[in-house]
């Protein structure tokens, strides 16, 4: 059994981050342990995080604190393993991660990356999938509303959903919609597959999510992949 390692630096975020680490470990079938960085400064956190990620017995990392420029921002763009990020105002998942929101934009690599993590989740986890129709993801055609939804939805589910999940479709700004839905559906965790780049539509979702109140599990995918526009 591998570890989910929580790296804590700031005392004020310590308990929530450790709770996230414990919940993340249960979710992924891992042990939880915590590493406290004794030396203040972002470089120290980055060094510890890099060393931890290099450990083959570590499956995922937990980082607290999300202001841009914080150590977590450097790590999330280079991590080769999933990273739980605990936003500053995040609630403590004391009851574990039972409801997981999985936004899917149809990009195959990001979907596959997120799916790989979702498949590891405990079987009693409720997976709530969502897709936001936006400029980047709007289908080319929607022939007959009487039938197109069935045809499109069936194929989207078959291609993108890694497990039995409810799929909710909406339209608008993906960043705003995803964060709003995370609140609305009472998700304790948001799983985002992304290309680990801080520009582009997926990065907007990540930035918005990291400023939210729900812990985020970031899963790196192929760099440069765009959301799937049908």
């Amino acid at each position, binding site marked *: 059994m591998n570890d989910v390692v929580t790296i804590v630096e700031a005392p004020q975020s310590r308990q929530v981050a450790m709770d996230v680490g414990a919940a993340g470990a249960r979710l992924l079938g891992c042990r939880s342990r915590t590493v406290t960085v004794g030396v203040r400064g972002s470089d120290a956190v980055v060094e510890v995080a890099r060393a931890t990620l290099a450990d083959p017995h570590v499956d995922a990392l937990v980082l607290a604190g999300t202001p841009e420029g914080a150590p977590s921002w450097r790590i999330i763009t280079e991590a080769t393993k999933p990273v739980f990020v605990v936003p500053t105002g995040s609630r403590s998942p004391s009851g574990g991660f039972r409801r997981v929101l999985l936004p899917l934009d149809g990009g195959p690599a990001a979907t596959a990356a997120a799916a790989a993590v979702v498949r590891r989740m405990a079987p009693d986890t409720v997976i709530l999938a969502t897709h936001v*129709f936006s*400029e980047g993801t709007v*289908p080319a055609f929607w022939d007959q*509303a009487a039938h*197109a939804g069935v045809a*499109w939805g069936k194929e989207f589910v078959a291609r993108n959903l890694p497990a039995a999940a409810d799929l909710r479709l909406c339209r608008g700004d993906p960043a705003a919609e995803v964060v709003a839905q995370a609140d609305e559906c009472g998700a304790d965790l948001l799983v985002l597959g992304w290309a680990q780049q801080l520009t582009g539509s997926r990065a907007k979702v990540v930035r918005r999510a990291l400023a939210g109140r729900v812990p985020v599990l970031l899963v790196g995918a192929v760099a440069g992949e765009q959301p799937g526009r049908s």
Partner: protein
Amino acid sequence: MRADRTYGAVVLAWAGAVGAVAGSDDLLARVRSLSARGVHVGILGRGAARQLGTMPGPGQVWCVDDTLPVARPELFRRFHDLGVGPDLVLVLEGPDSPLEMLDDQLRRSGRLRVPDIDRDPRWVVQRQGQAANRRRVDEALFTLCSGYVGTRGAVEEQVPGREAMVLAAGVYAGDRPEDGLVVGPSWTDVSSLSPVEQDVRWLDLRSGVLVREQVAAGTRPFRSARFASLALPGSAAMRVEAPADQVRSVAGEGGEVWRWCEGAAGGGVGVMIRDCTSTDDDLHTHERLAAFVGEPSSVPRRADAEEHLGAAARQGFDRLLSAQRREWAERWATAGVSVPDDPELELGLRFLLFHLWSLSDGHGELAVGARGLSGSGYAGHVFWDADVFVLPAMMTIAPAAAAAMVRYRLSRLPAARAHAEAHGCHGARFPWESALTGDDVTPRHGQLGGEEVPIFTGLREEHVTADVAWAVVRQARWAGRDLSAQERRLLAATADYWVSRIPVGADRRAHLRGVIGPDEYHEDVDDNAFTNVMVRWNLRAAAAEVPRAGQARRRRWLDLADAIVDGYDEETGRYEQFQGYFALEPLTVGDLGPPPLAADVLIGRRRVARSQLIKQADVLMLHMMVPGEVAPGSLQANLDHYLPRTAHGSSLSPAVNALVLARGGHPDQARALLRTALRIDLDDLAATTAGGLHLGAMGGAWQAFLFGFVGVEVVDAVLCIDPHLPASWREVEVAFRCLSSDVRVRVGEGVVTVSSRCPIRARRGTAPVVEIPGGHRPRRLERSRG
């Protein structure tokens, strides 16, 4: 020349080959055996063919004098005419080991080895390395049809997400909106076959053979080939070869398995298969013949399947394959296309022709659902797509099938009359969605992106009634024949419907209120220009074609035709799409993003309805369908206005706009849209091809090419040609059916040449009509001197 292949023809090419064959019992016996298996043999050398005696066939055997400089090309031309491309010809240049090579081919046949195809990139659709969850797209692309039955191109082994199915045209599970086609039992499953990874699949459009091959290194490859027989409609054949431990027969050696599925409507689809197996070295080989029975309203009978299967078995796989190649070659000779400067587009056109043709069962009636027989999408329902998009294409390649499509509508005329009555009208009103009985099966609820929406098309998209009438007349005029009595009844009944549906006011103006036009972004409009002009056309056509309707009745039709408003503004040359359209927010598609895009999904139903954005051609559909009913010279003004507002959110849209752009003298702009139309399924642009091919878009694309770019039309039984080719196309050649003849047109470097099997009349643009002699003697059409 690869030794490890099964060829379709053999050339013995050395001096004295004829004499050698005639003089050697061993060699002659092998030539006879090859002929018996459907392999064609060409013998180059001096000597008379009669030395060889009668061959058992169906493989042809020719002796060609090799002193003639064209001897070898002549042989290859003959093979080509029989559907055997150059890559499928085994050429034995010397007498060193002809017996061994011929024996190898005979052994491969006897051991049930998988045959090859000619992998000519201009004729082959290839798919490689598809992710497992996208294989359903390939299943639709690789659908093979025989007669009225289609088999999706699912792989042979059981893999997650696979949707193997057999569908029969017109065999519905029921007549409720949610009932689709009956899904018949799959016949291509091979048990105990572990997943085949790293495979490549080729659909040979020239022969209708689907081949699959494993390309993983270090293993004996898995290979398969299958086809739906043209020679014996309702039957199919498949061979599979794989390492011996990988395959087990389903039916057992020589055994037969009969399975069927029934729908609530009483009809069903049945499949009977017969397997046989063999081995070759360490390969297990497996051959399966299948026969289908589909019955719309009764249980499929095993005896029928047995009869079909028996006929297939008497032929055997090799002979069926030989006939398959020959029949497809004959098809391509009567309807085909060549665009040498645009091979990708050319392949797209051949791909659509292949699938349209695959549906072309000319017996009885033909219900062409929106996705044909390639998937369960759209519940197999018949929309206006069939009448306006597929049928006009079908009539140019398979007139008998177009006539069968018309019969589908004719036999549902009583249901259309009942539908009109249910709406308080007389005459006949055809439903927006039709299936088994012709009752309206349009769902009442649907989904627009993430939004649940009520569906009004069944209530308001009434133009389908005029579309059906238009299709009936269109295919008759294209064939150069008069309407039948039944067709005239349909035309009159639809005209009666409009008379009862549309009141004429005291001001002698008639308004059609509360409809949906082809642009479905605006769902409750008055005086939709498309609908009103199509109604006018319907009324006038009825008056012209049904003289026995009586003077009073015809007078009512013509009065309404004269009274109905059409939204045309002489000053601007534009038609207003419906009352109030020009006052809507002048959004263009460029404000949202690059088309095609589903604007209603992106910005919502209400927002799009408040704007001038349109889903697809609406006014411009008139310029495609009834150019004689619109104001002369109005095309450009309406292109200028509507094209920037067209989101192409319907898969039907790119083709229509390509057609009118080409007709309007913008072939380069049109080419880009035609390309989009042709890639809808090949590139899965809609992300829904897994549910079936977009047949309407295919039919539209063929119309865009033939009626738009080549500029072909039939007017008063005269073939008119007014080509508009993109700058990058130096020449095109097209063969099609028209005026009850086979016609070929070549356009290149400003020259138009026509030939025809039967005498016809033709003209170029407005030039005088000229007589085209029969016998495919080419005649150049001159431009008008004016």
